[in-house]
């Protein structure tokens, strides 16, 4: 009697867990029933993705050519062109850059940017003829800001603010990263740019040339100039006016504040001079202002990361523009997923029927246990935040097969220590699943996580539920 109650309790628990796992728990919320069990989170392959298409930017230039094909520089009206027998051609200014090598380089840079932005779940395809690139990424709140980081050319320039002479550019960057500085009024986010050895020397030279001229220095310089003028007057030398002017200009140039302009993507980040020469080859640019609000800091950090990503991976060989940007639902419909589930459920039902026919009551209990295992695994997947992808379905099926095989072993009582044997056999699967879990690419990570939980649950569940139930029944008999 006591054993019967034990079996009944376990069976009822399995039924309860199965109902929660398969159907859920519904509670009334604002005149409607809502399932309070955590919902599944779907990956890009099942949910859909943001599909972005970028293509080389066309800069159309009109060229007028004579009958021999020589370019005509002067501006002519259409009538004049006709009269003189010239022809008008529209040419893409960037045509020379449209090479396969440049297309591939762009693809590589975009892949690097995607990876640095932490977007490992992506698909990319390059049209080798036109240079158009299709990128599929997951849809979330930051998708829009990420897109602009992908196709931005990534120019970095430090130039003279007046002459616009480029003093430093992308080729001197070693690494760019995001840094945080604790200040009295909060945390400020900064972009740290480290230059290579050549860049370090250049920066040192720039910081010496563009040193901040202090006010006192300027005053002294002016005083010196006036003193010299006075002395000149006193000595009454025969110097010409021109010489005097030249001297004054020279002194002005020495004391005039020279500044640099820093540009990222042709956008001026700052125009400044340097208080002290920089010998380390490291520059620190503050992004935003110091704040104690986590949301604001995150926003600044995202912006800094965006700059760092662009600077770290080199600049695109040509300008690109967006030719398509939309969210497209997966071609795998809910109905198709349902068919797959029905198929798996059908095969499982046949396999469980086999157990019942072959092992009678033991088989029936083992089948009950199997259903409990499936529902527990479904709950575990949801609460362990496993993102459901096609890989999850494959790994789930592997976990079911493993569980089924161990059930047969328990039923056959072939091996005394089937759990120990299973443990050793499962170690390579566990190794694979743990490695896959740590991968950022969702299809692999979700496969690994499902398999990991599947293997763990097979061990724990069968040890705690299946084996005790069957042993109770055995003792009863």
């Amino acid at each position: 009697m006591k054993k019967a109650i034990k079996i009944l309790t376990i069976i009822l628990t399995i039924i309860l867990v199965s109902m929660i796992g398969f159907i859920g728990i519904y509670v009334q919320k604002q005149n409607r029933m809502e399932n309070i069990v955590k919902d599944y989170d779907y990956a890009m392959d099942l949910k859909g993705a943001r599909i972005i298409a970028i293509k080389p930017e066309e800069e159309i230039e009109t060229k007028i050519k004579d009958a021999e094909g020589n370019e005509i520089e002067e501006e002519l009206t259409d009538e004049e062109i006709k009269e003189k027998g010239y022809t008008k051609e529209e040419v893409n200014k960037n045509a020379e850059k449209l090479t396969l090598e440049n297309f591939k380089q762009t693809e590589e840079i975009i892949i690097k940017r995607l990876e640095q932005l932490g977007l490992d779940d992506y698909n990319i395809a390059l049209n080798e003829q036109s240079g158009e690139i299709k990128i599929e990424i997951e849809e979330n709140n930051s998708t829009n800001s990420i897109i602009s980081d992908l196709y931005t050319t990534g120019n970095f320039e430090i130039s003279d603010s007046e002459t616009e002479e480029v003093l430093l550019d992308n080729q001197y960057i070693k690494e760019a990263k995001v840094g945080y500085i604790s200040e009295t009024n909060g945390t400020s986010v900064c972009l740290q740019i480290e230059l290579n050895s050549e860049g370090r020397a250049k920066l040192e030279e720039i910081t010496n040339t563009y040193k901040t001229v202090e006010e006192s220095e300027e005053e002294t310089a002016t005083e010196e100039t006036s003193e010299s003028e006075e002395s000149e007057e006193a000595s009454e030398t025969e110097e010409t006016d021109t010489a005097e002017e030249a001297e004054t200009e020279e002194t002005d140039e020495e004391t005039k504040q020279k500044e640099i302009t820093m540009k990222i993507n042709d956008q001026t980040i700052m125009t400044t001079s340097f208080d002290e020469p920089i010998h380390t080859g490291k520059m620190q640019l503050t992004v935003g202002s110091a704040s104690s609000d986590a949301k604001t800091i995150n926003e600044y950090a995202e912006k800094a990361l965006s700059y760092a990503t662009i600077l770290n991976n080199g600049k695109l060989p040509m300008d690109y523009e967006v030719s398509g940007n939309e969210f497209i639902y997966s071609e795998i419909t809910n109905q198709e997923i349902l068919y797959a589930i029905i198929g798996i459920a059908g095969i499982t039902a046949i396999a469980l029927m086999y157990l019942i026919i072959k092992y009678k009551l033991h088989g029936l209990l083992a089948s009950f246990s199997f259903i409990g295992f499936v529902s527990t695994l479904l709950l575990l997947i949801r609460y362990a935040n496993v993102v459901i992808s096609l890989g999850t379905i494959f790994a789930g099926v592997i976990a079911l097969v493993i569980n089924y095989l161990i059930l047969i072993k328990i039923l056959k009582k072939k091996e005394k220590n089937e759990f120990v044997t299973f443990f050793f056999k499962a170690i390579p699967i566990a190794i694979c699943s743990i490695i896959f879990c740590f991968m950022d690419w969702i299809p692999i990570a979700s496969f690994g996580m499902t398999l990991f939980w599947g293997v763990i649950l097979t061990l724990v569940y069968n040890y705690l539920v299946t084996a005790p139930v069957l042993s109770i029944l055995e003792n009863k008999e």
Partner: protein
Amino acid sequence: MDKTKKRALIMILIAIAIIIVGVIIAIVKGFNFDLLYDGGKRIEVDIGKQFEVKDIEAITEEIVGKNSCVQTVEIYKESVSIFAQDMTEEQRDNIVTKINEKYGLELDAKASEIIDVPHTHLRDIIKPCIMPLVIATILILVYIGIRYIRKTSVEILLETIIAIILGQALLFSILAITRIPIGKLTIPMILSTYILSTTFCTARLEKYVQDKEKEEEKSKSEEK
């Protein structure tokens, strides 16, 4: 040669034969790519109201054939993306006309520009798998080395590596022969095959170890 070895040899020979056929087909015909991975032409039609994917599929199939794919666009599900291996302007016009007839619309076909969708290379599809599989293989070999070091030899480690490579080669050969399309299912297939081949190796090793232990126990009891 005992029965088990004979059976194993036959299995290996069959596997090698499949791989050879697969390699030949892959070289001559290449792999069959899923439509969305193979590249082609795509148009987008802004219907402006919710629609049945089945209806659009029927229209598309009638005009461009079965080799097409219909997907809903954007959250409001009022636009449709139609993908086909090839699509002429005439076919596009016909599709839009039929959609207009079906939903009582007056959409301009020229507004749906034909977009070239590039082909996704196999190397780009399988690239993310390489690193995790290499790391997992190294760790599994270390585990096998430690667990079976007394009972097995270097040959076992080599056998494991061969089984893993053979498993993947067999998978791609089957994909090439059966023309199963390379696409979203390829990665889970690669991972599943990998798991199966490593499990097969360790199960075999475990059995070998158990048999040996039983033999040793038997001989010990006989000696006693």
